[in-house]
């Protein structure tokens, strides 16, 4: 709420209003005085990304139950306010508003698309509430549309592109590339990032076919790919669309005739594409099997998650889980849920949990942590429940792949 700033913009009307604004302040302060901390969980429970959303919810509930069992945050119980964002910017935004206005949420987290993340981010900036985005991969969340109140731990498209390029070019060289790209901001930014790294190094882009989000029939695009006989076929699709696209690509014999790239994958997409994902190269910020081998904290998390839900956590779930723990850490350090106090702490905080030491970059609030390059393994080798879907080709440390500051167009507000 910014009545004070407005008063400067011209003669201010209704000083009573100003007074009340001060008196009743932002919900953040309100609920800080009350006996609980409300966190808004804004995740898709319907629509193409609902599987990702449900898995995030599992992780949130796990983290919050653990916290409440061990005495909450600063002795305050953590309560949640849940909403189905339907992967629609408008709905996500309205949910967040409800969580803040009605339920007094002091922090909003979740989401499975960049569109919703950007919308919620903008709202939280207006409302002066904290937003810890979860599954958003588009650059803009911490670049063009970055905000003081928004932190994104999940790696962005730029980082994926860098990681992929490094591994691929060292492993398979360059050659001819054919892109099938989801025709919206995320798809564009992934494609542009990838092209920007591989094309200069000799990769020849034959075509980039952009298809509407929610396309059911990919045959036309896939035939073109087939006719072009590329060395690398990049399927920049996510969720159900990626599953559809890759499965149809297989029936066109493309999984055999060329190297297939899927810039971002998670456990559920891999499961959906069954054996077609074999040998497909992709990236992910977290892979339960790999990280539980290397980090004890991750082992603990994966174990607890599996014990409770009998499934392994997707990388979105891991990000959700860590978001909550990081928030707890920050609040306890600040001894307050007031974003004004929390933001500087989050900007300078280090933590060492599921992936070793990581932090948010002060300038754009992008999480600096590692990116894995994965390669799909045959369905037969994925274990009974099919969650062990890939082997790790390479782990790229955050600082190596993150976008250089001078390339950013992020203009962070002062407050």
């Amino acid at each position, binding site marked *: 709420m910014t009545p004070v700033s407005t008063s400067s913009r011209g003669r201010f009307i209704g000083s009573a209003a100003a007074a009340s604004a001060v008196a009743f302040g932002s919900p953040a302060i309100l609920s800080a005085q009350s006996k609980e901390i409300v966190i808004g969980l804004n995740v898709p429970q319907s629509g193409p990304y*609902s599987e990702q959303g449900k898995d995030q919810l599992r992780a949130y509930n796990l983290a919050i139950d653990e916290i409440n069992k061990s005495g909450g945050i600063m002795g305050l119980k953590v309560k949640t306010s849940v909403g189905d964002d339907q992967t629609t910017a408008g709905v996500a935004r309205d949910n967040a508003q409800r969580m803040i206005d009605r339920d007094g949420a002091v922090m909003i987290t979740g989401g499975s698309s960049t569109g919703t993340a950007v919308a919620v981010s903008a709202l939280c900036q207006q409302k002066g509430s904290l937003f810890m985005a979860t599954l958003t991969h588009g650059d803009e969340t911490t670049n063009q549309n970055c905000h003081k109140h928004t932190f994104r731990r999940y790696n962005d498209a730029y980082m994926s592109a860098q990681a992929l390029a490094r591994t691929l070019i060292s492993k398979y060289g360059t050659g001819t590339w054919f892109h099938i790209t989801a025709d919206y901001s995320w798809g564009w930014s992934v494609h542009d990032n990838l092209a920007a790294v591989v094309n200069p190094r000799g990769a020849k882009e034959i075509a980039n076919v952009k298809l509407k989000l929610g396309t059911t029939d990919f045959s036309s695009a896939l035939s073109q790919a087939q006719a072009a006989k590329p060395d690398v076929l990049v399927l920049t699709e996510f969720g159900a669309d990626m599953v559809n696209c890759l499965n149809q690509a297989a029936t*066109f014999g493309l999984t055999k005739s060329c190297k297939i790239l899927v810039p971002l994958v998670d456990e559920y997409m891999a499961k959906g594409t069954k054996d077609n994902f074999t040998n497909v190269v992709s990236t992910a910020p977290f892979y339960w099997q790999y990280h539980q081998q290397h980090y004890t904290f991750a082992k603990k998390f994966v174990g607890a998650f599996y014990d409770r839900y009998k499934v392994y956590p997707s990388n979105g779930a891991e990000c959700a889980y860590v978001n909550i723990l990081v928030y707890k850490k920050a609040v306890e350090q600040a001894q307050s849920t007031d974003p004004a106090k929390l933001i500087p702490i989050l900007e300078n905080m280090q933590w060492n949990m599921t992936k070793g030491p990581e932090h948010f970059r002060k300038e754009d609030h992008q999480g600096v942590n590692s990116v894995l390059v994965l390669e799909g393994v045959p369905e037969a080798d994925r274990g009974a429940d099919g969650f062990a879907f890939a082997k790790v080709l390479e782990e790229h440390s955050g600082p190596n792949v993150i976008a250089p500051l001078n390339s950013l167009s992020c203009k962070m507000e002062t407050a």
Partner: protein
Amino acid sequence: MVALTQALLNGLVLGLIYVAIAVGLTIVFGTLRLVNFAHGAFYAIGAYIGLVVAQNWGLGPALLAAPIGVALFAVLLDRVLLRPFYGKDVTSQILVTFGIALIVEETLRLIFGATTQQYPALAGLATSVSLGPFVYPAYRLLFAAGVIVMLVLVWLFMEKTDYGLIVRAGVRDRTMVQLLGGNIRQASTIVFALGAAIAGLVGAAASPIYSIAPGTGFAFLVPSFVVVVVGGLGSFWGAVLGGLLIGELQSLTTLAFAPAANVIIYLCMALVLLLRPQGLLGESEVIRQ
């Protein structure tokens, strides 16, 4: 050149899928003058019945169970809900069937979850066959052939049976249908069920190509309306022509400028509605409905 032949082939297959969905829509309109926004729901129900059956007993039984199940559902709908809306103003028809579509979609979401479901891998059918310069998915070709067979059967039904007579009469002149008298109620139920069964069958048969989600029905409803309007509401051959036209148009647009592949069909529909509202092969009599 190869790319073009492939595009044309894809357009043909895609077009046949549209035809298959649209044909039920159009004969139902032709006979009952019912604008059925729930037609996509029939597709989805068929797909899910097919999924359940296919997972347990394979695709063959699925292709049998889906149309039967959907037809039964349609009869129920016809008897319980829709009767009073036949011949009523189009607006209330659109509204009630739109509402039914909503309910079906959400019920499916409740039962099967919102996630996209994959048909069990089809041994042998998931392969691709070589067509000279390029290979093509075997199942798509099989599907296309199946659609053609089905269309022939529907056509025979329309030409050779009394019900078919009623359908064709209905397209031209409602009163003539009324004159045919007593069996009209039963006939209309049968036609409605048939239209639904076709959609259900297509739903089950197409799902190995396209995975299914609760929203799939609506995703196919809109294009099939485009097809029917372009071809001419109520006209069998119109649906066929419209479907193939839209299929090729979409496929070729993807080749030329992919982002427009989706919007082009609306452009096409708008042009037809403005220049020849009754559709390419439609009867002008129905326009004011």
